[in-house]
């Protein structure tokens, strides 16, 4: 079965692009949809901060979204994988975090078959947990998180 797994086919960056391209999500966060962790501050050659990163203290919060992989093993016989992606939606307030989570969920939930230029095929993606309200333990920024499951191909799909 190993020959059916193409290491280039990764679900996370494709979901990230779909979220970034969603008009409602981008109207809230701009292009601040990140993979793995929030973007750090922009530094100049002297190491001085030119522009603050996504993570800011109380009163300076900015909305952003972080996607991270929770795993999902490939199917034993069929060249597909059920990838699980955790999505954390940070808002300036609880309400904004909830609105952002709903926007992200709407952008991905129940979205049917689509293929991408690199051959990745996603059959369907679903919000499988619904939102969980929380606040970040480091910055106390309000956040809502949920998990998306996407059934995707592990070998290129040609349409």
């Amino acid at each position, binding site marked *: 079965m190993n020959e059916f797994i193409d290491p280039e086919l990764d679900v996370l960056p494709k979901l990230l692009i779909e979220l970034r391209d969603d008009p409602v999500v981008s109207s809230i966060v701009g292009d601040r949809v990140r993979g793995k962790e929030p973007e750090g501050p922009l530094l100049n050659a002297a190491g001085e901060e030119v522009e603050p990163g996504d*993570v800011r203290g109380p009163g300076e919060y900015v909305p952003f979204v972080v996607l991270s992989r*929770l*795993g999902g093993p490939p199917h034993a016989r069929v060249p597909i994988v059920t990838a699980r992606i955790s999505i954390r939606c940070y808002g300036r307030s609880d309400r904004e975090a909830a609105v952002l989570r709903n926007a992200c969920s709407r952008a991905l939930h129940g979205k049917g078959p689509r293929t991408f230029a690199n051959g990745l095929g996603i059959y369907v993606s679903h919000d499988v947990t619904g939102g969980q309200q929380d606040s970040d*333990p480091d910055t106390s920024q309000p956040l809502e998180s949920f998990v998306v499951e996407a059934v995707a191909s592990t070998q290129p799909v040609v349409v």
Partner: protein
Amino acid sequence: MAKLRGPSKRVVLNRAAVTELGLAVADGIFEVGQQIIAVARPPDDPRVLLRSAGPKHRWYHVDESEPEGTGKGLPLQGGVLVYVDGQKVAGWHQRGKQPKKPRAAKTPKGAIVAIVGYGFPGRFAEIGTANSPAQPFLSPAADQVTPAIPGHLRTGVRKRLGSRP
């Protein structure tokens, strides 16, 4: 070493109220939950995270006298709860005490529900925080155990009902 505490009288009572078959399946699911906790490898020493958590989470007990990275933090926070028909029939925690049901967990009647998880701050280790990337440990463990679920259920059912004619 703390003395292990068994299920309370109420749990024993609840077990008597549910059917043999329900209990057999619940025992199988309970075993699955324990297996997931046994397989999970949570990141050691959540106190690094806790120190930055601020006053909001001060209620969480942190024994500063323990050296860091000894596996006494999050790696010993795992627990399993099983409910049949909304009644608790089994509970287990790595530290020996009975775990509390999470407030958000629903245990409806007519269903067998197993809750498998880690205490605070396991959630933040699993999904990450603003300053630390996610270190998923529970989802991969569940993925690892999932293919063996029918086997665990079979064992549970056989143990309880195998001797029946």
